[in-house]
């Protein structure tokens, strides 16, 4: 009997490579990182158990002067990028849903920035935003808005929002296509019924179809939150691991990088201390992740 059971479950072998790799390089590292956060360890030599000392340092000690601003910057990153991404993406997705000539080309064009490396996007926009000869400021001066021709990336007040905006520019295509999928999935009877009741096309979009899109917007919001708290590349590419000017763009990702992997200007370094930053980040991301899984699982036709 045992032999027979084993044979009938032979298909499970196809699951094994995924489970081994996923466990070793994704699941186990998360657990291991949590454990590491209770140790003082420079990366080599013996580990020293320090209990909650790393957390005390980050939340109330020397490192808190860097942790809280970075944390606040992640929140700002999320809020600004939400506004910049979701609202224009909705407008553009409705525009694509109108089915005008060239719609397929527009879909492809809107996704092209997504295909570029963040390092390259950061560099490219660094050029366009160059205070002396970048086209952004040239254009502002040409249209009589010279007062707005700021050193966007060098100014403490504008640097972070500028970086978020560049990041939004790159990511819009994904949001547009997901929202378009939502619009296309809405029953045709809804706009038809609206028209019979005398609603304008704009009213159909905003009053009848927008509510139907809330689940998609919720999904994208959760993804945006998860990505906003694990962001690193765009800041590193545009402002370096120091996250200048004067730390104005420092986020948890760059703070973690300086602490765990050195880099210039780390006020303190250590794998355990770095791991505690990660665990705190994880504590923020995890509830959002659970929420995401619940939302995704609730949708009809989903779930194992």
């Amino acid at each position, binding site marked *: 009997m045992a032999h027979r059971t084993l044979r009938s*479950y*032979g*298909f*499970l072998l*196809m*699951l094994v*490579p*995924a*489970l081994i*790799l*996923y466990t070793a390089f*994704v699941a186990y*590292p*998360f657990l291991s*990182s949590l454990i*590491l956060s209770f140790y003082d360890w420079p990366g080599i030599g013996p580990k020293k158990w320090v209990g909650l000392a790393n957390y005390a340092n980050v939340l109330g000690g020397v490192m808190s002067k860097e942790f809280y601003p970075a944390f606040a910057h992640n929140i700002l990153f999320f809020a600004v990028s939400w506004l910049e991404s979701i609202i224009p993406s909705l*407008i*553009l997705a409705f*525009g694509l*849903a*109108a*089915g*005008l000539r*060239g719609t*397929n080309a527009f879909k*492809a*064009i809107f*996704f*092209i*920035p997504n*295909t*570029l*490396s*963040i*390092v*390259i996007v950061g560099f*490219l*926009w660094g050029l*366009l935003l160059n205070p002396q000869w970048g*086209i952004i400021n040239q254009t502002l001066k040409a249209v009589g808005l010279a007062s707005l021709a700021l050193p966007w990336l060098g100014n403490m007040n504008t640097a972070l929002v500028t970086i978020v905006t560049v990041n939004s*520019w790159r990511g819009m295509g994904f949001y547009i296509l*997901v929202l*378009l999928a939502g619009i296309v999935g809405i029953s045709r009877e809804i706009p038809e019924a609206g028209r019979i009741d005398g609603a304008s*096309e704009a009213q*159909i*979009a905003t009053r009848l179809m927008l509510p139907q899109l809330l689940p*998609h917007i919720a*999904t994208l919001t959760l993804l945006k939150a*998860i990505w906003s708290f*694990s962001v690193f590349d765009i800041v590193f590419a545009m402002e370096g691991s120091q996250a200048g000017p004067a730390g104005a763009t420092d986020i948890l*990702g760059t703070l973690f990088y300086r602490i*765990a*992997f050195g880099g210039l200007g780390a006020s303190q370094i250590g794998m355990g201390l770095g791991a505690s930053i990660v665990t705190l980040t*994880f504590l923020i*991301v995890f509830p959002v*992740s659970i929420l995401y*899984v619940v939302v995704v*699982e609730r949708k009809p*036709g989903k779930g*194992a």
Partner: protein
Amino acid sequence: MFRLNRAQAVLVMAVLVLWALMNLFPILVMLVSGFKSTVEIFTNPFGLPAKWTMINYVTAWNKANFALYFRNSVLVSAFSIAGIVLVSSMAAYILARYEFPGKRAVYLYILAGLVLPARLAVIPIFLLMRDLRLINSLAGLIVVYVATNISFSAFLLINFFRSIPMDLEDSARIDGAGSFRIYRQINLPLLRPALATVTIFNFINVWNDFFFPLIFLNAKDKRTIPLGIQTFFGEFAIQWDLLFAGLNIAIIPVIIFFLMLSRQFIAGLTEGAIR
């Protein structure tokens, strides 16, 4: 979906064209600049070059290590994607089609990886790689990419598997075909559009990834293109012509690849791969 009158259609079209230009303009500036001399990049930054030159590409390729970075990126991307597609499609097939005790737990366990940013766990991954002597190894980087992209790819594919009717599979089973044969001969061909989506997503991620190479690769001869470009900024910051040629070498393959598969990719995405 909408019935627009002429004025409305013009307005919508204007918005779409404006955003398309805002997408394309920076990229076109970058592409065209790769064919200019350094002087012209500054004197005529946004116009077409007076004389198109390929010399920047030749120099970047031969003297600025771009041939090497390119080779590394191609190797890493090709093997990673092959690995991701194989491993995650097998897992997706089992999770979508078979019943076994603990299946839901396994599904949720893998789904969790969809939203756990792997970079948060980079210290233990780094230590594991160090113990396995996989630092500075392209093979090591490939293993990490395969592992960290399983969740997302399997999730997409599970949804696609569910949309494929079971009839074919059932008749093959009656004819005595085994699990792996059914998967390979019946399901894989039907999954083509889904595999295009998974391939593009992963190609974009892996080709462009900067974080893992930054952490795992120190040796100059192992750098992938994004890491090579980052260091290139420092070393060649004054040689703008080479810099732009290097940027173009990095972006052209992925844009071409995307445009080639874009129809299937967009169809995959808009038919509800992600909701």
